[in-house]
């Protein structure tokens, strides 16, 4: 498959957030400020790529040969959690400033359904290893794009007179729905 098309497809057409509705919790939780959203975006890209690479190998050489497919979800989550823990320890030891700026969001990636979603999606689409890793990178970038757009919007939302009942998460969800409507633009662009 053409890598460029795949990149465009993963970012715009099948945006992991706005077209496949995965990873909504960090989308709402980490989009209050642009700096935080960029940090979160990069963290997700990194973890997604690593997790996809590891889970791909595990799936291919352990789960499939021993017929353990039903353990996929739990094993993948375990791998992602272990990876996040590893990344956290590494950053804490080697790059303390980055570790500090990511704060609580780093461990929270463990429960990010976008990361698990990417790892499972590449299995379902039966990509080869290089394509799978590339796809996870592109999907992570798509996640970051949606997050940064949302952060820009929410910085303005903070000064809007939103009805009391809709303040905070509620209006964020409405906004996510409307953005997803706008992203219908790319429907049917690349199969």
């Amino acid at each position, binding site marked *: 498959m053409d890598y460029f098309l795949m990149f465009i497809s993963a970012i715009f057409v099948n945006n992991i957030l706005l077209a496949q509705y995965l990873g909504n919790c960090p989308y709402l939780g980490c989009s209050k400020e642009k700096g935080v959203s960029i940090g979160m975006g990069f963290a997700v890209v990194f973890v997604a790529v690593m997790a996809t690479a590891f889970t791909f190998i595990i799936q291919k050489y352990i789960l499939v040969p021993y017929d353990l497919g039903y353990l996929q979800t739990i094993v993948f989550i375990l791998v992602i959690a272990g990876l996040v823990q590893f990344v956290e320890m590494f950053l804490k030891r080697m790059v303390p400033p980055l570790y500090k700026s990511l704060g609580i969001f780093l461990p929270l990636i463990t429960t990010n359904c976008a990361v698990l979603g990417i790892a499972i999606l590449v299995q379902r689409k039966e990509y080869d290893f290089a394509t799978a890793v590339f796809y996870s990178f592109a999907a992570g970038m798509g996640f970051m794009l949606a997050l940064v757009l949302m952060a*820009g919007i929410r910085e303005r939302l903070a000064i809007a007179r*939103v009805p009391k009942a809709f303040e905070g998460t509620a209006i964020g969800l409405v906004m996510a729905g409307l953005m997803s409507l706008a992203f*219908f633009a790319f429907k*049917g662009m690349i199969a």
Partner: protein
Amino acid sequence: MSDPRFHVSVSPHLRDTATIGSIMWTVSAALAPQLVLAAWIFGPRVLLLAAVSVGSCVLCEAAMQRGLGKKVTVRDGSAVLTGLLLAYVLPPGVPLTLPFWGGVFAMCIAKHLFGGLGANFFNPALIARAFLAVGFPVAMTTAWIAPFAWHGAADAVSTATPLYLLKHYGAAAMFQQYGAHAEALRHFFLGIRPGCVGETSTLLLLLGGLVLIWRRIITWHIPAAMLGTAALLAWVFGGETLFTGDPLLHLVTGGMFLGAFFMATDYVTSPSQPRAKLLYGVGAGALTMLIRFKGGYPEGVCYAILLMNCLNPVIENAFRPKRFAAPLPKPEPKPAAKPEAKPAPDASQKDGEGRK
């Protein structure tokens, strides 16, 4: 000013007689000729369509403002304008429930949930159209009426829009239906073609847009950038080979002029700095052509503008104007050794000193 002596007042000192009402009603007036033309081409049904749409928008705005305990401001014409624009982006043959629900969505969800006039992120009429396109896909893509069909038969004759033919059957099939190249372009320019209620006549929309520029309601940046980019891309990528496309064809079909002059220039959802406006227009034009050439829809103006609406806060932030003031005093370098040792009281004291 009646008083010739010096006038002492607090800022702002630049004043203008324009009000929200005057702007909204002027834009509505600039749009009106197209509605008359549409009524003549597609039949009086479109007037009913526009009436339902405007009525729904006005009612919902009033209801939302009353319900939220705000001042009811339907007289300023912004709801009327949204209703008019919503009717303009619908196919003329749709059932009357569509403009009604579109108006409800535009006003209640896209506008008033976000805080009312000036706080919405998406153009209400366009996001309502996107909503209707998802909710009523058949009506929104097939309810076209052939020009002057209502003079003859009692029922509307459905047909296909030029862009639909262009996308699915190629340029040859389109010109076969609409006459030779020059004749077809003339008809498209004058507005005698199937299409949405308010997008048909390039001529009338262009005149309306020029009136808006002349009245200084909009500036030339967004329309010029959007139309220019679209024409350039149509020329480069529109043909069988590179640089053989037909830019004029892509400008006079679809909702290009309606979008460029009346939708993309919406104050609330577009940037305010000239350079940011140019970027916004270029983006809208490029996305339009991307969707027309590569996307799943024959027409992309609506979605292109919605996507640029998404990007608008980021663009606006990137093009902040320079401050014309003394530079802020630099924050004093913090002692690097103890970043966590009670920074709060320290910092506030220093701030206080700095301002003295």
